[in-house]
């Protein structure tokens, strides 16, 4: 009798702890003009932001749900709590953070990572940042890393925020971008001045603890010319039976000759609808690098978009998706070539098991003016059983004859020949299969920073047994 290779589901017990919250700190359920005004008042928004929120709400009410992608009918917007008042305002001294929150982030290893390998850390708990800190020498170089609300109220950055906020992802982009515009709260603002190369990463960690709530953080990063930044984003939540919603927004502005690397390990719990929007505009000879690991959530729609607006601009997207039981993860990337001599490279891996559904979805658009541009897309999928599903839906649109676009994709199971070859070299069968699966994910994990690569290895716990399946 054949015995199939067993690959374990991702063990989320590590992330699955929670603290009871005082529900009097929750604003009411649903998305209404009164709720929006209340959020705006709680946060002390400037007038333009209040108007922006109310305008976004009107757009939200007008727009339809997406007509493609995974089913999100289980998401009842009337039951989602859009905002939770913080127990205490943001701190930049770790000891002043409330004990339960401090304990949460300590369990997740955030303070340790800050001490060992980060230039700055932001930690968001439910709707608001609870801690933000940046190393002294980094601040002295002119780098700004703070929460978006503080920056908006600081006269040095207020105009910068106003002129960039939701300009790359306007509320009219789609229904959940409009929702974000109406209820956003928390998130980070980063500004890297011209000529500053920040070799150590900054990291923001988003934790949604409350039951039936939404998290709508906004990350705005502006990198000047000839600069470098590596930004890491992590997210997790404990599991509840009620649906939770994450509709964050990331806007990245990469100046001429600069590089921005944006790494994400997403590990939301399996009751989460992750409808996040990420977008970058890239200047002349500049580069954006996305490194993305999608492991959690019940449903994900996630396609970081790069708009190559400057001559010679480049984009790279490296991603891995692991869909287990009860998960429908629709991930990929979008790239728009909007200037001459631009180039892009997409390299993804996806694994489906135990009834999980993973979909790779991408678009590469080469506009008329993008003469001399090149794009290459490569995606591979691994099916670990026959109750799972794996789909690949790439699209390429080319509007000039002076471009080169290549695409390749592959889908299949663990190859018997590869197992046989490794066994002929002295490995036992279980080790051979483990090696093949870890090798399948390796070209993504090697792009992750060391601490995240270790986290990914922790996430994918591979158990092998039996003979060739």
């Amino acid at each position: 009798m054949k015995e199939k290779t067993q690959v374990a589901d991702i063990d989320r017990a590590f992330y699955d702890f929670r603290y009871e919250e005082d529900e009097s700190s929750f604003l009411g359920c649903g998305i209404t003009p009164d709720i929006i005004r209340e959020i705006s008042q709680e946060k002390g928004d400037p007038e333009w932001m209040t108007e922006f929120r109310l305008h976004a709400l009107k757009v939200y009410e007008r727009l339809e749900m997406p007509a493609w992608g995974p089913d999100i009918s289980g998401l009842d917007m009337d039951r989602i709590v859009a905002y939770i008042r913080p127990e205490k305002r943001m701190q930049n001294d770790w000891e002043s953070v409330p004990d339960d929150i401090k304990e949460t982030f300590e369990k997740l290893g955030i303070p340790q990572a800050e001490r060992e390998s980060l230039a700055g850390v932001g930690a968001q708990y439910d709707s608001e940042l609870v801690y933000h800190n940046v190393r002294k020498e980094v601040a002295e170089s002119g780098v700004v890393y703070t929460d978006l609300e503080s920056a908006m109220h600081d006269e040095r950055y207020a105009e910068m925020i106003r002129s960039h906020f939701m300009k790359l992802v306007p509320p009219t982009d789609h229904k959940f971008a409009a929702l974000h515009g109406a209820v956003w709260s928390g998130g980070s603002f980063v500004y890297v001045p011209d000529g500053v190369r920040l070799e150590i990463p900054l990291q923001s960690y988003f934790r949604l603890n409350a039951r039936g709530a939404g998290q709508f953080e906004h990350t705005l990063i502006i990198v000047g010319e000839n600069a470098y930044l590596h930004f890491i984003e992590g997210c997790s939540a404990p599991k509840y039976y009620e649906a939770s919603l994450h509709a964050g927004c990331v806007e990245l502005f990469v100046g001429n000759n600069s590089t921005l690397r944006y790494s994400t390990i997403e590990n939301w719990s399996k009751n989460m609808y992750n409808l996040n929007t990420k977008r970058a505009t890239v200047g002349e000879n500049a580069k954006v690098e996305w490194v993305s690991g999608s492991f959690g959530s019940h449903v994900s729609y996630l396609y970081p978009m790069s708009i190559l607006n400057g001559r010679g601009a480049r984009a790279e997207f490296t991603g891995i998706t692991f869909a287990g039981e009860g998960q429908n993860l629709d991930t990929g990337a979008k790239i728009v070539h909007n200037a001459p001599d631009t180039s892009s490279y997409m390299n993804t891996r996806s694994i489906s098991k135990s009834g999980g559904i993973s979909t790779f979805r991408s678009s590469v658009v080469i506009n008329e003016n993008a003469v001399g541009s090149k794009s290459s897309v490569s995606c591979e999928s691994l099916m670990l059983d026959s109750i799972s599903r794996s789909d690949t839906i790439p699209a390429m649109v080319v509007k000039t004859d002076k471009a080169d676009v290549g695409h390749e994709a592959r889908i299949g199971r663990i190859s018997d020949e590869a197992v046989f070859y490794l066994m002929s070299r002295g490995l036992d069968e279980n080790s051979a299969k483990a090696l093949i699966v870890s090798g399948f994910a390796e070209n993504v994990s090697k792009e992750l920073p060391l601490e995240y690569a270790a986290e990914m290895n922790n996430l994918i716990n591979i158990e092998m047994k039996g003979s060739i399946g």
Partner: protein
Amino acid sequence: MTKTRLNILPTPTFGHLGVNYTEREVGFAGKENISVPEGADRQIIQFVDSDDDTCVAVGKNARLQLVRVCASEQGCVSKVNAALDEDAELGLIQLYLGGNNVSEIIAELNGSRSFFRADIGYDLGKDCTLDLNLAADHNGRKSISEINAGGVLRENAQKIFKGTIDFRTGSSGAKGSEKEDVILMDGAVVNKTVPVILCAEEDVEGSHGASIGRIDEGQVFYMKSRGIPEEKIYEMITRSKLARIIRKIGDEKTEQRIYNILGWGDEVE
């Protein structure tokens, strides 16, 4: 006449790309049925110049080569729905040589070891358009599909190629491959390519590849170094794309008729 929604992508994607479906007025006169009985071996050649809806059934151990040439100036809407039985084989050669065409080809590989091969070629210039939706649905065990599409876009031509390999539950041991190779000759052309693989079965192998753009500069350089003028090189390379497919027809009269439509004279160089 009201517009009908056609060429619906089996799994829709980003709406702004304009590839999920097309709408067009259609005037199907009726359904044409082609049935190849068990064990038979047939070749059918059709020059399609008006809206056409064809159903094909290829029986057990039967073999059909279906050649369809769409060369009318105005173009048309054409549909082929094929069902393949056990060990059945369908080879489809479909050429688009002008006009505004909407074309849908669905091959249901129902029988074990059924085999579907599609060779799609196009040479589109002026304001010609082609919206092609091709799906190979694998239901049978060890069924095989091979889809090869390729051609040339010139002047203001616009083309959408949507190719889907769908491995359904029960199609274990199936294999599917899909490839498109497009040469773009002018700055005003628009090419859209959507190669889809849908997979609900573990023990399958699927792959797709696409190459879109200019003629390889190394190839042009090599031929120039052999004394061939540049204009002639482009003509030779683009002709070779279609000629490779036309030669597979294996019927001299039909091949000659196609060369005449293309204005290639009476022989293939």
